[in-house]
């Protein structure tokens, strides 16, 4: 355990990635994510790693995928406009099963929007931004320390499931500084790059799934001479036009994540035992929500809170349970109302779901959330 330190969320994210073994960063500057790149431009060469600033966000995504195939753990960082540009290649990473982490520090959009102001407006894009079908893992931290932890998790999941993982930071957490105590190196669990378990002669095929449904394509340069493509392919890695193979290919991509869904659905519950209503929240907004909920509890109000760290895959079960026992769920988000739609879907009419959108560049105040809590409590009391 290190000394307590004042640290920025973006910095913690960069250091978390580094601690998890990231040794390659390719990126293109964009507010409010730039500190991640700047931090790694300085740190990576110190540990023999590589930082490269590319000509745009597409090239940044491409360069990390190439580096990942050549054996490095990789990261890129961006914000809204750049995240939009990366979508095609995020899909490539999904179908070609290339481990990579994309940190998206959200700001107000659409388009150039309000570059220096906070938002949580890319939550749905993180799931649905690219064409075609594939699953997505997206994690959103609410503290600076958790930015570090989430970065470690993201790298580990990317490697373990050979899939792109998105860190959904928001400007609030990304740019704020707070006191953190980082874990010591030996306290950090690291998932190493998967390796082939047999030789070509023994019948190795690069995309044959292991028991966990994840394949072990060999790193380039290790003598396996594999083929990697963004076309639908079979276990050999070569393209196939067969309907059966296509179904298998797309299905396995989803199932390798589905089958660990519970394990990778991280969330906190606060005061939920006897909660009449619950605030469902994530990212920077969760901090304010907690302040309001804690205050409400102090006043004896039966309010609980669910804080989602895992945004995707979506925590259906958690929300279903909460919906079954609470009279209403309040969903404050720094956007026009995005994740609330998933919450509505999961709630399936069991309870009232109240969207509380805010998209004016300002973060919620505890008072606003307290007010909404009070109103909701009075409504459900009727």
């Amino acid at each position, binding site marked *: 355990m290190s000394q*307590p*330190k*004042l640290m920025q969320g973006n910095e913690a994210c960069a250091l978390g990635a580094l601690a998890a073994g990231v040794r390659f960063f390719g990126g293109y500057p964009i507010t409010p994510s730039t500190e991640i790149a700047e931090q790694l431009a300085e740190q990576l060469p110190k540990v023999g790693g590589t930082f490269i600033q590319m000509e745009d966000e597409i090239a940044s995504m491409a360069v990390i995928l190439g580096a990942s195939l050549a054996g490095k753990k990789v990261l890129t960082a961006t914000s809204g406009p750049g995240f939009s540009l990366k979508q095609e290649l995020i899909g490539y990473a999904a179908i070609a099963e290339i481990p990579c982490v994309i940190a998206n520090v959200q700001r107000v959009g659409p388009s150039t929007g309000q*570059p*220096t*102001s906070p938002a949580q407006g890319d939550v749905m894009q993180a799931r649905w931004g690219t064409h075609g079908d594939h699953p997505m893992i997206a994690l959103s931290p609410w503290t600076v320390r958790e930015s570090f932890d989430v970065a470690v998790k993201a790298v580990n999941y990317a490697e373990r499931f050979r899939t792109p993982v998105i860190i959904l930071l928001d400007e*609030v957490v990304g*740019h*704020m*500084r*707070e*006191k953190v105590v980082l874990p010591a190196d030996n306290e950090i669990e690291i998932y190493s790059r998967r390796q082939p378990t047999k030789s070509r002669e023994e019948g190795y095929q690069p995309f044959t799934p292991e028991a966990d449904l994840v394949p072990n394509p060999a790193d380039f340069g290790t003598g396996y001479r594999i083929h990697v493509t963004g076309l639908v392919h079979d276990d050999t890695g070569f393209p196939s036009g067969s309907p059966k193979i296509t179904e298998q290919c797309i299905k396995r991509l989803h199932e390798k994540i589905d089958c660990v869904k519970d394990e990778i659905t991280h969330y906190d519950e606060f005061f939920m035992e006897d909660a009449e209503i619950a605030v469902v929240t994530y990212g*920077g907004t969760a*901090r*304010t929500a*907690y*302040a309001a909920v*804690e205050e409400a509890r102090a006043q004896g109000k039966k309010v609980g809170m669910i804080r989602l760290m895992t945004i995707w895959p979506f925590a259906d079960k958690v929300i279903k349970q909460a919906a079954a026992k609470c009279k209403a769920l309040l969903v404050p988000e720094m956007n026009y109302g995005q994740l609330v739609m998933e919450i509505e879907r999961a709630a399936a009419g069991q309870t009232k779901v109240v969207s509380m959108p805010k998209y004016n560049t300002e*973060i919620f*105040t*505890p*008072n606003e959330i307290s007010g909404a809590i009070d109103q909701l409590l009075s409504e459900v009391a009727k």
Partner: protein
Amino acid sequence: MKQLRLSGSGGQGLITAGIILAEAAIAEGKEAVQSQSYGPEARGGASKAEVIIDDKFIYHPKVVNPGVVLAMTQQAVDKYSADLAEGGLLIIDTDLVPNPPQGKKIISVPITKLSTEKLGRELFANIIALGLLVKITGVVSLDTIKAAVANRVPPHTVDKNMEALLIGYQAI
């Protein structure tokens, strides 16, 4: 919980000042959160840095009722001093804030002028302001803030910055 806001224009070094203050608080074993907000301008434009200091984990990261607002420009006063807490204190740069607001407890110090006149450059105004803030609020001790400043600024500027800190500390 102490809530402080340091406002002015981009380039005046107030974010650095805020960071130093938060680091000093941490050095004293407290919890601290520092945040900022700024416009599209690299220099000029209104910008603010906020620091919250408490004994327990700070959830909501922005200042709600600032007990102290430092405002280093007129624009900053106009934009960032309205929500000053009841009984809160507004510290202004005398020369750069020609029209201070009515009905507030105000301390006016010619911060920037002190910097140019005593240290030859505007550059140290932020550290002077920091000295002033620490003296007025007592959120951290003089020794702590000295160490925090020394820790952050480029090595060859430590002496000048110590001077600046004291100029501020002794300005009222």
